[in-house]
C-alpha cells in the first residue's frame, strides 16, 4: 500500500508539473462557465440576459432542467469530454510509459521490492488519474450548474465519471503498451490516434451498415406487402374475369366488351406484379447483402473497444434514469435513406430495437473491457519478460 500510495502521489506531482493538465482543467472551467451562462426561456435559448429565438430549445419545448441535461450529455460529455479533453489527455499522458521505461529510471523502480505486474498496472492506473480528475471536476461542476440553474439535483449525472473513465482507458491501454514497447512518445501518440480512427471507422461502419440493413428490411417488408396486395388484387380480378366470361358466353355484347377490358387490366396487373416480383427479389438480395456486411462490421466491432458507443451510453442511461428528453420525430415524417423513402419514426424504432438487441450496455462495456484486458495482459507479459 505504501508503494502504491507513493506511485500515486508521484503521479500527482507529475500531473501538477504538466502544464497541459492545468490548461485542460482551465478549459473545462470555461466550458462549465459557458454552460452556466446558457439557459432557455419561452422564446428560446438565453445567453446571460440575451434571448435568442430558437423554438426548438424553448422552455415550452424542453423544460429548463432537461435543457441543461441535454446540453451536458450532448456537448459536455459527447463533445468536450468525448473528444477535445480526451485528445488533450492522450497527448499529456503519452510520455508516462516511455518515461517510465527510460534507462536510469526503470532500473531503480525494478530494483525495489515490488512485482512487475503490480508496478505496470499501478502505473497504468496513475495514467487514468489524469482523465479521472478532469471528468470528476467537470461532472461535479455541471451537477452544481444544473442544480443551481435548472433546480434539478440529478445524481445520475455522475454516471459520466465511470463511463468517460472506461472510455479513456480503452485508448490509454493501447497508448501504454505502445509506449512500453517502443519507448517513444511520438509513436505512442500516433498509434493511439490511428487506433482511435480505426475503431471510429469500424463503429461508424457498424452503425451505417445497421442503418442500411434496417432500411432494406423496412423497404423489403413494404415491397413484400405491396406484392401480396398486388397478388390479392390480381386474384380478385381473375375471379371477376372468370365470372364475366361465364356471362359473356350468353353473347351479350356489352359483357363481352367489359370482359375484354378486364382481361387487358389483368394482363397489365400481371405485368406490374412481375416487375414488383423482380424488384422484390433485388431488394431481398440487397437486404441479404446488407445483413452480411453488417454482420462482418458487427463482428469486427465486437472485438474492438467501442469508444463512441460508450459515450452514447450516457445519453441512453440519462434518458432512462434521469428523464433526459431528446427531440421526438414527427409521426408522418419521411426521410430518404440509402435511396429509399422510409418513415422516420418507423426507422428510429426499428434501429433502436436492433441497437438494444445487439448493442446493449453489457455488450458495449463488456467486449470493450475484454479488448482492454487482452491489451493489458500482453503489456504485462512483455513487461515481465523484458530485460532493461
Amino acid at each position, binding site marked *: 500500500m505504501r508503494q502504491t500510495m507513493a506511485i500515486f502521489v*508521484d503521479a500527482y506531482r507529475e500531473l501538477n508539473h504538466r502544464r497541459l493538465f492545468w490548461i485542460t482543467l482551465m478549459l473545462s472551467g470555461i466550458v462549465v462557465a459557458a454552460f452556466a451562462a446558457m439557459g432557455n426561456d419561452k422564446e428560446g435559448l438565453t445567453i446571460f440576459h440575451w434571448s435568442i429565438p430558437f423554438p426548438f430549445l424553448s422552455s415550452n419545448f424542453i423544460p429548463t432542467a432537461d435543457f441543461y441535461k441535454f446540453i451536458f450529455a450532448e456537448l459536455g460529455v459527447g463533445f468536450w469530454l468525448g473528444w477535445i479533453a480526451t485528445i488533450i489527455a492522450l497527448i499529456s499522458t503519452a510520455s508516462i510509459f516511455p518515461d517510465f521505461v527510460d534507462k536510469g529510471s526503470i532500473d*531503480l523502480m525494478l530494483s525495489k521490492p515490488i512485482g512487475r505486474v503490480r508496478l505496470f498496472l499501478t502505473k497504468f492506473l496513475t495514467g487514468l488519474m489524469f482523465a479521472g480528475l478532469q471528468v470528476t471536476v467537470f461532472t461535479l461542476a455541471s451537477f452544481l450548474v444544473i442544480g443551481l440553474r435548472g433546480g434539478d439535483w440529478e445524481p445520475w449525472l455522475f454516471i459520466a465519471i465511470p463511463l468517460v473513465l472506461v472510455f479513456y482507458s480503452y485508448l490509454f491501454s493501447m497508448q501504454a503498451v505502445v509506449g512500453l514497447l517502443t519507448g517513444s512518445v511520438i509513436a505512442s501518440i500516433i498509434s493511439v490516434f490511428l487506433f482511435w480512427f480505426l475503431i471510429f471507422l469500424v463503429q461508424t461502419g457498424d452503425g451505417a451498415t445497421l442503418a442500411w440493413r434496417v432500411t432494406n428490411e423496412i423497404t423489403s417488408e413494404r415491397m413484400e406487402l405491396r406484392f401480396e396486395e398486388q397478388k390479392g388484387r390480381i386474384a380478385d380480378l381473375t375471379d371477376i374475369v372468370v365470372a364475366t366470361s361465364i356471362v359473356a358466353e350468353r353473347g351479350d355484347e356489352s359483357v363481352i366488351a367489359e370482359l375484354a377490358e378486364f382481361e387487358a387490366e389483368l394482363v397489365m396487373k400481371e405485368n406490374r406484379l412481375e416487375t414488383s416480383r423482380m424488384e422484390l427479389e433485388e431488394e431481398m438480395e440487397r437486404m441479404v447483402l446488407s445483413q452480411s456486411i453488417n454482420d462482418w462490421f458487427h463482428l469486427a466491432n465486437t472485438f474492438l473497444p467501442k469508444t463512441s458507443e460508450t459515450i452514447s451510453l450516457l445519453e441512453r442511461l440519462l434518458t432512462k434514469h434521469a428523464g433526459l428528453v431528446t427531440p421526438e420525430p414527427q409521426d408522418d415524417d419521411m426521410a430518404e435513406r440509402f435511396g429509399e423513402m422510409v418513415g422516420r419514426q418507423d426507422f428510429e424504432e426499428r434501429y433502436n430495437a436492433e441497437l438494444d438487441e445487439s448493442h446493449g450496455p453489457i455488450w458495449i462495456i463488456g467486449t470493450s473491457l475484454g479488448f482492454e484486458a487482452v491489451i493489458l495482459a500482453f503489456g504485462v507479459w512483455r513487461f515481465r*519478460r523484458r530485460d532493461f
Partner: protein
Amino acid sequence: MHEKTSSPSSSPSPSPPTAPPESEGGREYAVDLHDVRKSYKGKVHALRGIEMKAQRGEIFGLLGPNGAGKSTLVKIMLTVVRPTRARGTILGRPIGHQATLRRVGYLPEKHRFPIYQTGRQAIEFVGAMSQVDAKTCRNKADELLDLVGMADWGDKKVSTYSKGMLQRVGIAAAMVNDPDLVVLDEPTDGVDPVGRKDIRDVLVKIRDRGACVFLNSHLLSELEMVCDRVAILVQGEVAAQGTIEELTSASRRYEITIAGSPPDWTDRNGLSLTSLPGQLAGTSTLVLPTAEADLIQDILDQLRRENRTIVSLRPVRESLEDLFMRYVHDPETGRAKTPGASKRKITRAGDAS
C-alpha cells in the same frame, strides 16, 4: 569455510528463510554468486558463469572494460535483468527474492530522477518504494541530505542540479532504507575531485556501519583508494578476484638503484636478480623478485662489500591499473581483449573443447 548457496532461481519468488552464508571470517556474505550466465538470443554471451563473493562490512569493487558485463551482473543481482542461469544468494536469500530488495540500495548508472521532484522528494520516493514508512523517510531524507552535503538544496527541483549534485542525491537515495547491501554503478561519474573525496568518505561510513558496498566503476584509482576487495571482469568472466594485496602479491619486488654498472653476479642465496639500466645516467637498477625485506639484506651487504653506492632502495608493487591492464590484455598477442560481450561459444566443465 561455510558456504551456503540457494537452489537455482531466476525469477522473483518467495522462499523460506535460509541461514545467511558466512565467509571465512565469520562475516555474512552479502553477495554470493555462482554460475551466473546471461546470453542474448543464445548467441551473445554477456556473462559466462560468474563466481563472486562480497562480504558485509567491506567495499567490493567490480572492474572491467566497457561491455565486460559489469552492469548486466549488477542488474541481475537487482532483478532488472533476468539471468539465463543463476545460483547464489543476495543477503542470504536467493537471487530475485523480492522481499530482500527492501534491504538493498541501488544507484544505477546514468540514473535519472523525474524533473518534477525535489531532491528530498526523490529520496522519500525511493524510500517509499523500499517500504520505509513516511516518518522514517522524512527523517532519513534530512539526515542523508546533510551527509552528502546537499542540505541546502534538498527542496530545490532536481532539474536545477549539476551532475555531481545528482550523484550525491542518488547516493543518499540508495541509503534511505538503511541497506545491508549498497550497489553503486559509477557513483563518481561527473563528480569533481572534492565531490569524489566526499563520496569516498560516505562509502567508508556505509562500510563501517556493517553494510557491503558493491562498487562498479571505471576509475581504478578511486577503487584502489577505497576497495577492500575487487573482481576484474573481462568478456563476461571473472579474470581475478581478491584483495588488492592478494592480487598484486606476485608482482611485489624490491628495486635497488646503484651507481655504475650492474654487478657480475646474478643471484645470492637462491634469490636471482635482474639488472636494468637505471633511470638516471650512470646508474643501474637491480630488480629482486621478493617482498621479504630479510631476503635482500645479503645482497645489500654484498653491494657494500663491493663499495657500490646505493642510490635508492624501494619496495614496488603493481598498481590496480597495472593489474587491470594485465588482465584485459591478451598475453599471447599483447593486445587489449575485444571490448563488449563475447560471441565465443561457451564451454562447460567436461565439455570437449
